[in-house]
């Protein structure tokens, strides 16, 4: 095959370790048969833990919203990335499904809804509508560097939520629930590997991508989708469930990405959520 004229800032070689084809072939679908939901009838989870499970479920459902932001940018042209995202969205769908069923296995539990004040809700709805329009203009001007930003965002989001799963398993001391958390954590491990490898490779290849990522990642809400959630819940996720030393570790991992040192994204997000919750 003759190599076509592709203008791109990225290095030609894909990450050696991760095969998107293999990932797609071995995708993990429904977990329903493995959830042992009856166990929660005799030994339910506490309301505080369920609140976190419900929050994580909504965040996992954000896959299509992420895709929406990503696909209007030049990232959609990269067939390897989109090939990954197709399977990633599928796996996240079933992770969210498992979490939803665990919550549903507790019929007495009523989750806190995102009852934001009306004005704020309207502003969100407007922003949500304008975002793909703005993004399709801005990101197309920026070009390929935006792919690095999307991969870094995907990686950081995975790190935060994965830590939340691990802490939830630990704090609840519930063997059946812990088994499910381990299971879901396994599914997410490959997402982490892919996003982290891609982000590292792309950021290392382009200093401009690093500068863009610094600007954009600072503006994002962490974990992704947290902007639509009640601040008290986000504050409990980042600072109750994910403990203070985790926040430091997570920021250290962000620091280790090429060009992203000193952002303090996760610590800042936790502080922001705490302040918003106090208002």
């Amino acid at each position: 095959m003759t190599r076509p004229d592709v203008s791109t800032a990225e290095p030609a070689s894909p990450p050696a370790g991760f095969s998107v084809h293999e990932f797609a072939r071995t995708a993990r679908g429904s977990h329903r048969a493995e959830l042992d939901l009856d166990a929660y009838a005799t030994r339910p989870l506490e309301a505080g833990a369920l609140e976190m499970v419900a929050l994580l479920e909504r965040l996992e459902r954000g896959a299509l919203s992420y895709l929406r932001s990503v696909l209007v940018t030049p990232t959609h042209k990269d067939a390897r990335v989109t090939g990954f995202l197709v399977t990633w969205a599928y796996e996240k769908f079933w992770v969210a499904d498992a979490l939803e069923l665990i919550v549903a296995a507790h019929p007495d539990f009523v989750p806190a809804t995102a009852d934001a004040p009306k004005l704020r809700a309207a502003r969100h709805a407007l922003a949500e509508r304008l975002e793909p329009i703005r993004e399709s203009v801005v990101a197309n001007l920026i070009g390929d560097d935006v792919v690095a930003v999307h991969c870094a965002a995907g990686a950081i989001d995975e790190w935060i939520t994965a830590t939340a799963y691990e802490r939830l398993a630990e704090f609840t001391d519930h063997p059946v629930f812990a088994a499910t958390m381990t299971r879901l954590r396994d599914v997410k491990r490959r997402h982490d590997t892919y996003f982290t490898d891609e982000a590292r490779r792309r950021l290392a290849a382009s200093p401009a991508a690093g500068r863009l990522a610094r600007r954009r990642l600072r503006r994002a809400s962490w974990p992704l989708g947290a902007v639509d959630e009640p601040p008290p819940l986000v504050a409990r996720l980042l600072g109750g469930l994910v403990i203070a030393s985790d926040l430091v570790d997570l920021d250290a991992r962000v620091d280790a990405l090429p060009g992203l040192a000193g952002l303090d994204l996760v610590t800042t997000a936790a502080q922001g959520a705490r302040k918003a919750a106090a208002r």
Partner: protein
Amino acid sequence: MAFDIDQYTETSEGVTWEDLDFGAFDTTPLGEYTLRTVRYMCNVEYHTVCYLRDLLVTPSHKERDVNAFMTMWNREEYWHGEALAAVLGRHGITVDYDELKAARVKLEWRDKLAPLRQSIMGNLVGDDFVAVHMAWGAANEWSATAAYRRLATLEQHPALSPLLKRIGQQETRHTAFYATQARKRLEKSALARKLTRLALAKAWRPVGSSISDEEDLDHVMKHLFNGADGLAEIRRIDTNIAKLPGMEGLTIFETALRRHEMDWPAA
């Protein structure tokens, strides 16, 4: 026709071909004429994610059923691409990610405007625009099903035809989703009916026409739909569209194909 989204998601899977005798391609290889059509189909399937993008910029993605369907649909189409790439690979034709990327890059300008236009349009008219997308999706899936069915019949190949049948069966479920959604939304709104009729009548083009050379498109349409049987198939799927609320009398497929100077019997 009702559509059970839970049943669909739980039974959604990537199409399989490992059990088919691909050795048949060594003894009875596909001709170049056919490979060109398979290649076109393969590209279209891999590019589904680009159509997904167009759908996601409208408000529909927030709806639970739509969200679930889009996730599964997108993955099934990706696997159709993989399956057809395996067929091509057996004939020494490599379809890889770099090449797919090159094709997407080539579309640069035409493509850049599409999501912008659609997010503005989609958000201005909101829910009614979702009806357009659903009817459009139904049209695409009906034509894809017809294309696979025709190729399977034309080839009668021991490995290709059963594979195409499997792909076609999945496309039929996609059609059911889109048609159910379209019908529900069209019944509710006169504006949706008006917009949809306008869009289908004025703008519908065969699936893949925006990502392919004109000559390839022409080749595929003639290969699959020339002759009396081809015309009959096209009229059959036009009838499906015409049954949607407000779409009576539309003949979008026949109209689109007549541009290709088809070898069809005179009416």
